[in-house]
């Protein structure tokens, strides 16, 4: 059996007196769409941050495809094939959509500064190749029309889409998404749901999805983990979770 694409073991994360994560373990299997839900401030984003290396857990470890990456820098972890989208957006506001997506491909490119300075060697070809890959993603996400718009001028919903595109541009082996549906109407959610499903099916990328829209979560997730006050309070298929009394009490109401 190959190692799981992502495994977080016994992560504990504290900020001063606040315990954001308390002994949390999750495993993501191949091709799986794992949803993480929980009330506000439960520690969902913190869990993604620990996974991505943005926070360093006081205890516990993170493994990507069997490799221990605990304590590595974010960019090193990204190079191990982890990509994520953000709660709120962290796009490069002044840059156009294409440029944002091209930045996502930065780590896949190889040219060095001297080559860039003189524009010799494979620089041109490399640029064109990666640009092609970027355009493919733009096509896939149906954002051709805004390709050359600075993302700072886009509405919130479109930004989220660009954010996804940028993560996909990294050609990740696992994708973490933090509330991708926030700020969309149901038509747009449908579009995005389709993209997420496609990502998983066509590109075979396992996805960890943090989301508050229960409709989306229940429909898309293979498995759900519920967090409350930094602890895992339930784990199971959507049907199981929907019926779990602890979850209903803490989250669904």
């Amino acid at each position: 059996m190959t190692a799981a694409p992502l495994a977080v073991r016994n992560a504990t994360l504290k900020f001063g007196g606040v315990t954001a994560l308390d002994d949390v373990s999750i495993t993501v299997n191949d091709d799986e769409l794992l949803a993480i839900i929980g009330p506000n401030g439960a520690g969902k984003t913190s869990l993604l941050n620990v996974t991505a290396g943005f926070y360093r857990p006081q205890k516990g470890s993170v493994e990507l495809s069997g490799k221990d990456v605990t304590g590595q820098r974010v960019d090193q972890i990204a190079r191990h094939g982890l990509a994520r989208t953000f709660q709120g957006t962290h796009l490069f506001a002044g840059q156009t959509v294409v440029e944002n997506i091209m930045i996502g491909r930065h780590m896949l490119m190889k040219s060095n500064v001297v080559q860039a300075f003189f524009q010799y060697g494979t620089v041109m070809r490399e640029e064109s190749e990666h640009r092609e890959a970027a355009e493919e993603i733009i096509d896939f996400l149906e954002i051709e029309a805004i390709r050359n718009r600075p993302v700072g001028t886009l509405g919130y919903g479109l930004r989220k889409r660009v954010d996804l595109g940028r993560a996909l541009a990294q050609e990740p082996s696992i994708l973490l998404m933090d509330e991708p549906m926030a700020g969309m109407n149901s038509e747009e959610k449908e579009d995005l749901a389709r993209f997420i499903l496609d990502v998983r099916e066509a590109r075979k990328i396992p996805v960890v999805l943090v989301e508050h829209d229960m409709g989306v979560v229940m429909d898309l997730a293979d498995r759900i983990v519920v967090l409350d006050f930094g602890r895992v309070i339930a784990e199971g298929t959507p049907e199981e979770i929907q019926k779990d009394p602890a979850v209903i009490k803490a989250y669904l109401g």
Partner: protein
Amino acid sequence: MVYFINDIITGALIGLLYALVAMGFVVIYRASKVFNFAQGELVIIGGFIVWFTTMQLGLSLWLSIPLSLVLAGLVGYAIERIFLTKLIGESVFSMVMVTVGLLILLRGLVLLLFGPAVRPFPIIFPLKPLFLGDMLIPMNLLAGGIITIVAAVGLSWFFNRTRSGLRMTAVAEDHVVASSMGISVKGSIAFAWVLGAILSTIGAMIFLSGKSLTFLASDIGFAALPVALFAGLESIGGLILAGVIIGVVQSLTTNYLDPMIGGSLGSVVPYIIMLAILLIRPTGLFGWRTIERV
């Protein structure tokens, strides 16, 4: 030994003078998030105002000092009106860059208005130093130290404890949010510059009392800068500690190390201390920590 202690005391007092000038930076930063590169120029403008009211108009000190402070405040206000009001709502960065322009412009303006001559500066604090046994302490620095401490305590109470202070803090945090909550960004910035100009003028009086005045005096802005960064750009109270530390180290360097190496390490040592502390604490001793959240 006595001399050593005396050097430490004088150094600390000079450090407090730096802290006072640095307070100009911090107040403006604290109320508007604008880092004012032209702070040293405000000091000479303040200096020239004092010079003008005493030496030119011939007013007595009791009259000219308050008048100078008022005039300095007006200059601060005018700067806000002319240069900064129009940029409210634009990025803070553009305001900071305006102060770069201001640095060059004010320098020219001082030359234009007062000419380049080296002027005698009025004697505001007695020239005769205070004698404590074998130690002697310059009166201007002593008075300056006291003023600095009083101003620092008062202003840090104002910014941290009062609601007006909180309002300005909100402006420093985010101009757009502040104005969307009905806080007048303009008012806050104007207040900051008025206060900054006044503090600079007081600084000029202490710095230059009984000495001479040219536009070269603006260098004190860059001498005070390490103190502001050492303390952290948001911290007014911290300036006292930072000023004293930097002042003492500088004084010991100039008095004991410089003669050995035959150079002027004393003038770079504040920058070295500052670099060291920033590498350990990137936002100074008491500055707001950078918040990174995804």
